[in-house]
C-alpha cells in the first residue's frame, strides 16, 4: 500500500490543484488494477494544468441548481452538491467536469419521461448521488444517467431506485461504472427497464455494482473489450446479465442469484467467464447460464448451484469448461443445438438430477477428468482416476428429452432400473460419450 501511495504521490503533487483528486485518492486506497491506473493516466494527459475552480450547490448556496452550476462551470471544474432534494431532470453535461454529491443528495426526476442526466462529454465523473423517480416510457429510452458518444469517465457510488433504466450508455469508450446500487421493484418485463444498459461501447469497466429488481440486471449489446466484474445481480425479472453480439469481453467474480431466467450470453466470440456464481435461478424456464451461438469462449472456475438448468448450451463451439462446480441443478448441462469441439475437464458434477442432456450428436465434444458424484466405479491402482469410464448421459435423460412429461417419474424405482440396464448395455445413449478418466475426488471442493 505504501508503495502504491508513493507512486501516487508523484501524481498527487502534480495534481494537487486538480478536482480529480478526491476521486483519485479514493481509488488508490482501493487497490485499483493496472488498467484502472491507465485510465487515470489518460486523465492526466487529457487535462491541462490550468487553474480550476470548485462550485458548491445547495439550497442556501449562491448556486441552487445543478443545471446552473454546469452552466457556469468550465472544463475540469468540480461541482459539489450538498445534501438535499433536487427536483431536476434533463441535466445536460457537455463539459469535462466532476459532479460530486455529498451525503447522497437526492435527484428526484418526479416521474417525468426524461432522463435525469443526459451526457455527451469526455473526462467527466459523477458520484455520490441518490437518483429517484425516473418515469417510464414505451417509446423513449430514459435512464437516471444517459450517456452517449462519450469517453473517459467515471460514474460511481450512486444509488438509484424507482428508475426506469439505471444507466443507458451508447457509443461510449473507456468508461467506468463502479459501486452503484440500482434497486427496482419490477414485476413484468414489459413495464421495466434494465439496470445497466450498454449499446455499442468499447473498453468499458463495470465493477462492484448491485442491480436488483430490474428487467435485465446488466445488458450489453455490441460491446467489445470490456470487463464486467464483482457485480451482484439478483432478482431481476429477466436476466441477471444479458450479452448480445459482444465480443472479446471478460466477466468474472460476479454473482447472479434468483433471476427470472438467469444469465444469457448470445452471439458472441472470445469471451472469458470465470469465478462467477450462478445460483438459485429456479423456475420453469430458468437456467444459470444460457449460451447461444458462442464460439471460442473460456468458462472456468464458476459455480452453478441449484439452477433449473446449470448451463443451457445452444450451438456453441470451441469452448473450454474447466474447474466449474455444478451442484444440485436440475440439469447441469443441457445441449439444445449442434455443438462441436467443446472440452469439459476438471469440473465437479455433484448431485444434479441430470448431469447431461442433449438432443443432437455430441460426439465431437470431449469430457475428461471430471468428478461425477454419480460415478460408482473403482480405483484399484489408487491414482485418483476411476478405472472404468463414466457415462454421464442416463437413459432417463434421453427419455425426458423426447417426452418431457415423463419427468414426473424422476427418482422412481423403474427409472433407476432402466438407467441401470442402459448403463450395463447402452442401446439408446451414444457409446462414445463418456469420461474415460473420471476423478475419484472432487476438484477444489468448496467450503
Amino acid at each position, binding site marked *: 500500500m505504501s508503495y502504491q501511495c508513493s507512486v501516487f504521490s508523484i501524481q498527487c503533487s502534480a495534481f494537487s490543484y486538480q478536482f480529480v483528486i478526491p476521486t483519485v485518492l479514493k481509488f488508490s486506497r482501493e487497490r485499483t488494477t493496472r488498467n484502472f491506473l491507465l485510465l487515470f493516466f489518460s486523465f492526466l494527459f487529457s487535462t491541462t494544468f490550468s487553474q480550476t475552480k470548485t462550485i458548491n450547490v445547495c439550497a442556501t448556496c449562491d448556486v441552487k441548481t445543478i443545471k446552473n452550476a454546469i452552466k457556469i462551470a468550465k472544463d475540469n471544474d468540480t461541482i459539489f452538491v450538498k445534501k438535499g432534494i433536487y427536483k431536476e431532470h434533463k441535466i445536460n453535461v457537455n463539459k469535462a467536469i466532476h459532479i460530486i454529491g455529498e451525503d447522497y443528495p437526492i435527484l428526484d426526476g418526479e416521474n417525468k419521461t426524461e432522463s435525469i442526466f443526459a451526457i455527451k462529454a469526455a473526462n467527466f465523473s459523477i458520484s455520490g448521488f441518490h437518483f429517484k423517480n425516473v418515469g417510464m416510457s414505451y417509446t423513449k429510452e430514459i435512464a437516471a444517467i444517459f450517456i452517449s458518444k462519450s469517453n473517459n469517465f467515471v460514474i460511481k457510488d450512486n444509488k438509484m431506485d424507482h428508475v426506469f433504466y439505471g444507466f443507458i450508455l451508447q457509443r461510449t469508450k473507456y468508461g467506468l461504472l463502479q459501486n452503484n446500487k440500482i434497486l427496482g421493484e419490477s414485476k413484468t418485463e414489459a413495464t421495466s427497464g434494465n439496470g445497466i444498459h450498454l449499446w455499442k461501447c468499447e473498453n468499458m469497466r463495470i465493477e462492484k455494482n448491485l442491480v436488483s429488481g430490474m428487467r435485465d440486471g446488466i445488458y450489453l449489446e455490441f460491446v467489445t473489450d470490456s470487463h464486467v466484474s464483482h457485480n451482484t445481480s439478483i432478482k431481476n425479472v429477466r436476466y441477471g446479465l444479458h450479452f448480445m453480439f459482444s465480443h472479446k469481453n471478460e466477466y468474472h467474480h460476479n454473482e447472479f442469484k434468483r433471476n427470472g431466467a438467469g444469465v444469457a450470453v448470445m452471439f458472441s466470440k472470445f469471451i472469458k467467464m470465470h469465478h462467477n456464481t450462478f445460483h438459485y435461478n*429456479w*423456475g*420453469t*424456464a*430458468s437456467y444459470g447460464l444460457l449460451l447461444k451461438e458462442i464460439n471460442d469462449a473460456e468458462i472456468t472456475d464458476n459455480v452453478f448451484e441449484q439452477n*433449473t438448468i446449470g448451463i443451457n448450451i445452444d450451438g456453441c463451439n470451441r469452448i473450454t469448461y474447466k474447474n466449474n462446480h455444478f451442484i*444440485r441443478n*436440475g440439469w447441469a448441462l443441457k445441449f439444445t443445438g449442434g455443438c462441436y469441439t467443446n472440452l469439459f475437464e476438471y469440473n465437479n458434477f455433484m*448431485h444434479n*438430477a441430470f448431469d447431461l442432456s442433449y438432443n443432437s450428436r455430441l460426439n465431437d465434444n470431449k469430457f475428461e477428468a471430471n468428478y461425477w458424484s454419480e460415478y460408482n466405479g473403482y480405483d484399484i491402482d489408487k491414482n485418483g482416476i476411476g478405472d472404468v469410464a463414466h457415462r454421464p448421459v442416463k437413459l432417463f435423460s434421453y*427419455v*425426458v428429452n*423426447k*417426452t*418431457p*412429461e*415423463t*419427468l*414426473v*417419474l*424422476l*427418482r*422412481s*424405482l*423403474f*427409472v*433407476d*432400473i432402466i438407467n441401470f440396464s442402459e448403463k450395463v448395455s447402452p442401446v439408446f445413449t451414444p457409446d462414445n460419450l463418456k469420461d474415460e478418466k473420471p476423478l475419484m475426488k472432487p476438484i477444489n471442493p468448496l467450503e
Partner: protein
Amino acid sequence: MLKILKYSIFDLLRSRWSYVYFIFYLLLGFVLLFLNSDINKAVITLMNIIIVLTPLIGTIFGVMYYYNSKEFTELLLAQPIKRSKIFMGQYLGIALSLTLSLFLGLGIPFVFYGLFKSAAIFDFSLLIVVGSFLNFIFVALAYNIALSTENRIKGFGYAILMWLFLAVIYDGIFMISLIMFNEYPLDKFSLIATMFNPIDLSRILILLKLDISALLGYTGAVFKDFFGTNFGFIISMFILFLWVFLPVLRMKFKLKKKDF
C-alpha cells in the same frame, strides 16, 4: 380394540423383525449422515429408500403377521369381541409398530446430527409423514390380500406382486403410455395417473419439496400449478388418506362375510 392393539404392538415389538427393521433404519440414518454430513442430501437418498422399502416391508409384515397369527385370531374370534375390532387392532398394531421403527430408526441419528438446527427439519418431517402413510397403506393392502386368500403361499405371491406392480410395473406402463401419446396434452393424465399410485404420489410430494418443483414446469403448467400450491398439497395428503381409508373399508366389508 385398544386391548387387541396393545397386544399386537406388544407382540410385534418383541419379535425379532421389528428390531431388524428398526436397526436397519438406524444404521441407514447414521451411515448416510456419516458419509455426507449434509442433511439435505441424506434426505434425498432416504426418500429413494423409503418410497421403495416402506411399501415392501409393510406388505411383507402385513401378510406375514396375518398368516402367522391365524390360529390366535381364531382364539380371539371365540372371545366376546367384535370381529372388526380384532382386525382393526391387529392392523393398527402392525402399522404403528412399523411407523415407530421408521420414526425412531431415522429420528435418532438425525437428532444426533443436529436436525433441529437444520432447515431440513420440514423435509424430514414430510419424509416421516409420507413414510408412515405408506406403512398404513401397504399394511392395509396386504391385509386385504391375506383376507381374500386362504392359501398363504398364494397370499404372499399376490402381495409381492402388488408391491412390484405399484413400485415398478405401474411406472413402466405410465412411462410407455406417456411416450406413446406424446402428441396429446398429457398434464391431466399424468396428474391422475400419479394419484392412482400411492408410491408415485408420495414420491412427487417429497420431490416437490426437494428438487423437482421447478423441473416439473417442463411437464406442463397443470402439474406444477397443482402440486406447487398448498391446495395441491392438501389434496395429495387427502388422497393418501383415501389410500388408507378405502382398503380399510374393504377390509371391514370383507370381514362381515369371511369364514374362519
